[in-house]
């Protein structure tokens, strides 16, 4: 009897051990097992391994309800607490059952905020969902996915910044889908071409903004016209501060112009160039300022434009001279270092443009020109040194040749 009991227990343990090692996860419920075998490749059960809820120890019933021990779908549906798949219009409330519950979230992730639903309800998506019962707008699962939700810090997540533009673009770049809303669908394409897009998507610079950095994520809405420079100013702090103190701010507010966007665009922000500043046709300032109105503004514009141009010329001239010296084989590391400083001053000068006053710009321009001139002079000296070396060699060679000649004649004599 004892032996039978022993053998039985051992077999039981063995069975548990074997099944335990074959089955992927201890919390592997009947739900996942059954759905895995009966669904397509990218179905929920296939994705759930990556999901943050699953990794936190939550299972299917925690969202969908029901009894996961049962293996018959009808029984599951009949079991108490079964919620099933929520209707599209119900999704935000469905998720916020936990995500707006501060006490519940505290037990799982104390640092996660619980205001997503509140923000969503202020967004264009949220308002259309609630008021117009629009089934096409984005809900939680549109951006986060339903079963492979990942932190935005993880590269496979749909909310990882380099992936985010595509996530938003699923709807916003689809012309047919967006036809009835009357808003453009070229934002993704424009953004991809922009400075920010190239930085984020091609260089992987996570410091560059994705859609949510300017539009918000849960409270997604275009930034207000008057608050645009504050949004841009989160990164472009100096330009924003200078702009706020400049005559342009009150003028733009008065005319309802969208601050930074007026000159720089919104999605297709390109690398600005000095040639944008001026009163000639095609230059930005000419959009509002007339060339011949004799105002202080026009005078300042021309001064700024001239200042930037002279700085550019001085820098380019220095760089060209230095390149020549380097091509001749002279050592130019010190001068390259100095030229980098000139580059920094150029960046600062261009930032100062946003004060829209020539007096702010002039000292920086002068500093830059002085330093660039210094580099250019040093490069010229290097080239002169190069020429001197050849000249010196020529002189020495003449002496050597004459001496050799003398020696040769002497040798001829002796023989």
């Amino acid at each position, binding site marked *: 009897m004892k032996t039978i009991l022993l053998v039985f227990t051992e077999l039981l343990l063995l069975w548990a051990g074997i099944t335990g090692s074959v089955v992927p996860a201890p919390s592997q419920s009947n739900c996942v097992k059954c759905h895995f075998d009966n669904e397509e490749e990218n179905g929920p059960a296939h994705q759930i391994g990556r999901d943050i809820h699953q990794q936190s120890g939550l299972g299917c019933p925690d969202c969908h309800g029901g009894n996961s021990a049962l293996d018959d779908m009808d029984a599951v549906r009949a079991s108490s607490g079964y919620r099933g798949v929520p209707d599209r219009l119900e999704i935000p409330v469905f998720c916020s059952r936990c995500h707006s519950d501060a006490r519940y979230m505290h037990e799982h992730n104390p640092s996660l905020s619980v205001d997503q639903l509140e923000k969503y309800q202020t967004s264009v998506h949220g308002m259309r969902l609630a008021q117009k019962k629009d089934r096409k707008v984005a809900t939680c699962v549109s951006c986060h996915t339903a079963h492979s939700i990942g932190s935005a810090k993880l590269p496979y997540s749909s909310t990882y910044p380099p992936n985010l533009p595509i996530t938003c673009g699923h709807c916003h770049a689809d012309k047919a889908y967006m036809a009835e809303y009357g808003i453009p669908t070229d934002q993704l394409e424009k953004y991809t071409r922009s400075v920010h897009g190239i930085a984020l998507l091609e260089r992987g610079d996570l410091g560059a903004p994705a859609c949510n950095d300017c539009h918000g994520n849960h409270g997604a809405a275009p930034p207000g016209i008057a608050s645009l420079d504050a949004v841009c100013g989160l990164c472009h702090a100096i330009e924003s501060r200078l702009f706020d103190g400049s005559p342009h701010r009150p003028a733009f507010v008065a005319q309802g112009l969208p601050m930074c966007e007026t000159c720089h665009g919104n999605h297709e922000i390109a690398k600005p160039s000095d040639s944008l500043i001026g009163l000639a046709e095609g230059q930005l300032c000419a959009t509002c300022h007339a060339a011949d109105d004799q105002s202080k503004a026009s005078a300042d514009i021309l001064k700024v434009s001239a200042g930037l141009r002279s700085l550019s010329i001085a820098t380019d001239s220095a760089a060209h001279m230095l390149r020549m010296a380097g091509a001749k084989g002279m050592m130019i590391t010190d001068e390259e270092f100095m030229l980098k400083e000139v580059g920094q001053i150029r960046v600062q000068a261009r930032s100062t443009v946003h004060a829209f006053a020539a007096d702010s710009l002039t000292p920086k321009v002068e500093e830059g020109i002085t330093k660039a001139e210094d580099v250019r002079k040093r490069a010229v000296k290097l080239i002169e040194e190069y020429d001197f070396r*050849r000249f010196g*060699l020529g002189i020495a*060679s003449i002496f*050597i040749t004459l001496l*050799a000649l003398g*020696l040769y004649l002497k040798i001829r004599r*002796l023989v």
Partner: protein
Amino acid sequence: MQGPDPRKKQSLPQRLYRWADTRFSIGDLVDYMSHKTVPIHGHSIFYYLGGLTLFLFLIQVGTGILLLMYYRPGADSAYESVRFIVSEVSFGWLIRSLHSWSANLMIFVAFLHMFTVFFTQAYRKPREMTWFTGMALLGLGMAFGFSGYLLPWNELSFFATRVGTGMVHALPFVGDYLMQVLRGGDEVTGATIGRFFGLHVAILPAVFTLVIAVHLLFVQRQGMSEPIDWEGKPQGEKKTIKFFPNFLYRDLLLWLLALNVLALLAVFFPDGIGVVHWPLGQKADPFTPPPPVIRPEWYFMFAFQALKFLPAHLLFIEGELFGIIFFGLGGLIWLMIPFLDKNSNLNRRSPVFMWFGVLVVAFIVVMTILGYLLE
């Protein structure tokens, strides 16, 4: 001793000679030297190669001493001091460039000198010791080159030295120990600079000076080797010129022209030319990955390439070890030529050894060319 004729005004050289003679009795020596002659024949031009090597060595000593004024050994200062010399010190670029060019030319001319001596069988009796000391000088010269190459502590030299010193590892028993002694540790570090510097500016110059003094003494004592087919010629038919001053003036003329060539190279190609290149480049950083092409200096390239061709194992011997044995034996045979070439001692030609020499030259030339082509 009769005094000089007071009516004749003495020239400066004559006055100097009298000053030295009354103190050191140099009369015998001067008399001996004034009778020294140099054979003139179709291959006489080769006689200049030894002196040319000496001249280039003297340039090395001069420029080396000048570089010592500013060079500072050590991982933290070597590179910076060389950069300082080349960019800030007046004519520093010139001194450094002369030093690098002269080093390479010296080795090249030394090889030429060795091969012309070989093919004229000048190593035969009584000049066996001159051959041995000469081979020692070649070895010392290459050691000079190898140790000096590391001193700028740039990427180029760091990785080349790492590969070069790593090769002794293949020697059985002493390999690891020898590598540690060479490197001053397990890896090539600032400690290696210290050793190589001591070698390059103190040990090697001292030994080299001694050996070259002996080598020159032999040459002066025995005179230039006559061509083998002068064997049996009557003395009257042997064409010669006096060493002092005729040959010496010719020597000086050649040295003057060589100086001009050096100066031209230093000004127009300060960083070398083609594959013989030594731009200062970046400072050595043991943590960066090695550049795609690591090459030794050109005079080691033939050995480097030959070793590359060897498979990992030959019979039961490790490939690298086999290579070391091969070159060791080859070097030994080459060294012992005066004793192996019995014919030469009887003043007869030795076609077998001449062909052996051709083979050696061909091997070196082909391996060197392949070394650069196959990079």
